[in-house]
């Protein structure tokens, strides 16, 4: 800051003038805003406590906004535990609940400016950046909150088609070789090596080493949902996060990215621009030159900018043909990944029998087929081409082992609904699937002993039927769990051992292309150094240390 500049803000007088104009444009009192901004800077410097700041402005805020939900001194200690800090206080300015997220964001922007926290305006986007420090950098273990996005990945379902890699590149407009999502086959010791495959996104570790070492807090865990993100406006490109991450999932932007921010914004003119998240921080899509990037688990989707139906999904999950990736909230036992973790063979069978887009029996076809058939099991099965005994047994078994069948908001509930539609159809036709006769015939219940009453379906038999249908995964694991990163991706299938070494997979990276916002359709690149980076090296000697 120059000495003749009387401004209180690190960005100086010019920025302040801009701020004042911005405040003038709102219905709120600019002088109050500026006054608060000045004191807020004092808070960030530690000259004034947050609680004092609150006391000082409580009345004014009441007058101006008609409401002051910011925590009082007593409540403040409590609130701090939830690590909301300023951003939370600001959110409480927003009274009515029916505003769109976008509007809240805008108001947050103004609010943030008002308290002078927008310390770093972004050069390209021009959005003020809510430096949500207290909340943004919770590197200490075990963040509170009920959302933690994560994945369950069934490696035995993955067929190595690289659709997820493509989808990620398209969603995020990545440069060639920036494989935020990566799929590899490997050789390892062990009996069954036919299915040695690994799907490797960022693990969004709860105790992320990358975050711990970052000298700037650019790499941070988002408080509300545990995503580990990089603030592209703060990152200095020291690459320490890439050094510290044990999984090798980080990709640095060594030169100007292929697709410009304008092109990305143009292609995404809906609610969000696919770059700024709901806190106003630039954390999504490919990173700008000189900063670090990695798999983000799609914050724009999670913030609802891609539509409500995309919340709780990721681009790779959507693209995976065999549904090997289950994305969702790891802290909700009814989420897709948690249901899958609880009973993986059920997850497999459910998808095969419930996904009407692909493999599931079709409702219409069954209806047509069985129209003239008798109402007993044998006749129905004979008449219907899509239904055989095994299919129906497994479908019924799924219903038997599932609590709250067909209820909830996980993606896989759609599959359950489809199965239950088929059941309804059969019931209408006159087939009682819960009757002793049918259940016994389907091997899902035992014939009662003489004189005893039929006690309904047997859960053990049901589980056996499900296990038989698609098989149980050989094991489940988290990658390098002993390093202590506390990853949020759970795998099913073979765990790569210390001697595992990548081999060629079923699909070659170079044979597959992806489409980006600028209209380009480059090929996927596996070894970025050899195929992309070496071209830019000044005096590439062609040898290596």
């Amino acid at each position: 800051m120059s000495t003749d500049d009387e401004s209180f803000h690190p960005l100086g007088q010019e920025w302040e003038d801009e701020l004042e104009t911005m405040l003038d444009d709102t219905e709120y009192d600019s002088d109050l805003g500026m006054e608060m901004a000045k004191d807020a800077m004092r808070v960030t410097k530690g000259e004034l406590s947050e609680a004092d700041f609150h006391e000082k402005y409580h009345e004014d805020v009441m007058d101006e906004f008609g409401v002051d939900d910011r925590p009082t001194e007593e409540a403040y200690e409590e609130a701090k535990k939830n690590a909301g800090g300023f951003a939370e206080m600001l959110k409480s300015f927003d009274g009515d609940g029916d505003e769109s997220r976008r509007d809240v964001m805008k108001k947050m922007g103004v609010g943030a400016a008002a308290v002078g926290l927008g310390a770093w305006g972004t050069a390209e986007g021009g959005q003020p950046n809510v430096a949500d420090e207290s909340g943004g950098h919770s590197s200490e273990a075990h963040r509170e909150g009920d959302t933690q996005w994560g994945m369950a990945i069934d490696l035995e379902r993955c067929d190595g088609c690289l659709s997820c890699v493509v989808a990620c590149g398209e969603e995020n407009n990545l440069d060639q070789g920036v494989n935020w999502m990566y799929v590899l086959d490997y050789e390892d010791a062990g009996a069954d090596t036919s299915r040695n495959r690994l799907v490797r996104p960022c693990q969004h570790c709860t105790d992320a080493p990358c975050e711990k070492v970052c000298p700037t807090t650019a790499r941070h865990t988002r408080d509300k949902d545990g995503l580990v993100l990089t603030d592209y406006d703060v990152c200095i490109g020291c690459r320490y996060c890439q050094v510290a991450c044990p999984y090798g999932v980080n990709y640095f932007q060594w030169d100007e990215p292929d697709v410009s921010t304008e092109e990305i914004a143009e292609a995404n003119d809906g609610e969000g621009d696919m770059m700024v998240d709901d806190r106003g921080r630039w954390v999504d899509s490919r990173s700008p030159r000189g900063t670090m990037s990695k798999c983000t688990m799609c914050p724009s989707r999670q913030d609802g900018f891609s539509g409500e139906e995309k919340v709780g999904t990721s681009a790779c999950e959507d693209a995976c043909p065999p549904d090997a990736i289950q994305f969702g909230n790891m802290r909700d036992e009814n989420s897709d990944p948690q249901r899958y973790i609880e009973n993986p063979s059920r997850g497999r069978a459910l998808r095969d029998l419930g996904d009407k887009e692909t493999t599931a029996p079709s409702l219409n076809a069954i209806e047509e087929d069985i129209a003239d058939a008798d109402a007993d099991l044998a006749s129905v099965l004979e008449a219907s081409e899509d239904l055989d005994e095994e299919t129906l047994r497994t479908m019924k078994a799924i219903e038997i082992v599932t609590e709250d069948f067909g209820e909830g908001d996980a993606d896989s509930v759609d599959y359950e609904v489809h199965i239950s539609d088929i059941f309804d159809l059969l019931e209408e036709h006159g087939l009682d699937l819960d009757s002793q006769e049918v259940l016994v015939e389907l091997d899902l219940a035992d014939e009662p002993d003489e004189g005893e009453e039929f006690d309904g379906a047997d859960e053990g038999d049901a589980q056996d039927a499900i296990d038989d249908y698609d098989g149980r995964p050989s094991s489940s694991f988290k990658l390098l769990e002993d390093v202590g990163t506390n990853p949020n991706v759970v795998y099913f299938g073979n765990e790569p051992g210390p001697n595992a070494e990548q081999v060629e997979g079923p699909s070659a990276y170079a044979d597959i292309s992806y489409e980006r916002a600028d209209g380009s359709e480059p090929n996927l690149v596996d070894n970025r150094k050899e195929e992309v980076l070496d071209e830019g090296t000044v005096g590439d000697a062609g040898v290596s240390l």
Partner: protein
Amino acid sequence: MSTKTPSKADILRPIGTFSKKYLAVYSIAALGLIAFLIAWAYQLQKGLIVTGLGDWGTGGGATWGLYIGAFIWWVGVAHGGIILSASVRLLGMDRYMPVARIAEMTTIGGLSAAGFYILVHMGRPDRMVTSVLGHFHITVNNSPLVWDVTVITAYFVLSATYLGLTIRYDVNRLRDDLPDKFEPIYKIITFGYSEKEDEIIQRMVWWLAAAVIIMAPLLLHGGVIPWLFSLLPAMPAWTGGIQGPMFLSIALMSAISGVMIISYTFRRVYNWEHIITDDIFRGLLLWLGFFTLLFLWFQLQSVLNGVFLGPLNTAHAAEGKMAHPAYQVAMTMIFLTLVYIFLQAIRPALFSKTRALIASCAILAGTLTEKILFVVEGFFHPTFDIYSATPGTYFPSLIEILSLVGTVSLVALLFLNLAKLVPVVELHAIEHLTGGHDHEHGHEETTKTETEPEVKA
């Protein structure tokens, strides 16, 4: 040994003279620095893609390379330099007093070069202040990189104060013989000076030296700098407590070698045989041998802890390191130097200043190679060694190599400039060599041990 008596005029000689040779050396150094500045400008314009670096993992590269290797090397030179000088003051190793200031200046030079490397290495150096300082209160709790920057800054302040205080004494006493054109600078240096402060300053310098010696193993090159690497769980080539002592030994080796080379140059140019005596070189060479021995011992410890019986990740890393030709060359070079140092200690006839110079250069080249390899090897043998692109490839690009020329030039320029401004050998050393009686101010020396006859080897 020369029979000349060291005098004030001797140490003032660099300041008073101005030769064609000086100009030539100055121009070469300036060119070296400018060449790198241009290269750096090009890097800023194009991005770090101009380097030979890449992403470790699927990307087939090394995340850090020569820039970070040279950074820790320069920090080592700097740390070693100040430890050397602090030992002279603290442990009464008066014999080395004539090179103490050269060691301090080496520290300032080394730290400048290291600081420069931090900027050169980053993708967005323009954000250094906002991003790093702006979040310092949070990141200082976690990030070894922030500890590094903190300690290096603290250390720069410490060394500069230390150097400044002793220069202040000299400038005040030599003021009449110093060129008038630098008057404003001397005014600042001696601002508010009174002879009464001498004793206090002596004590302050002593305490600063004590702080340096105590901090060296704990916080400086035996702690914070190796922690940048050794605390990370997934790069077995870096982990382990041995890195602390290892780094410290390398720092001292590099600094002693650096000081020898610079001292040799000054001695030759200004005929200082009677000030920077053969005796000093013999002594320094022995110390160099001692730290080299420690270094080789630590290397042995670190590689054996892996090749013998796993664990697998450590074994892979250790095997990879030992098999590397550059590692073998560097170690052989360092080992042969050690052999020479021992032989000349047994048979003094084997000593010559040229050989000492060659030994110093070999050690500097060896430690620099070791540093760069150390950094790169980490990425080549990670615990998660599954990717076919790992180990990747890395060779410094021309721009990275030019950075070495640039930083060496930077340090050379620092010496060339300082030599014209203040004496590079402190007045105390002269007073000491002549028994402390030939200076006109004749202030009381009772607090010092200088009046005792000097012990020479």
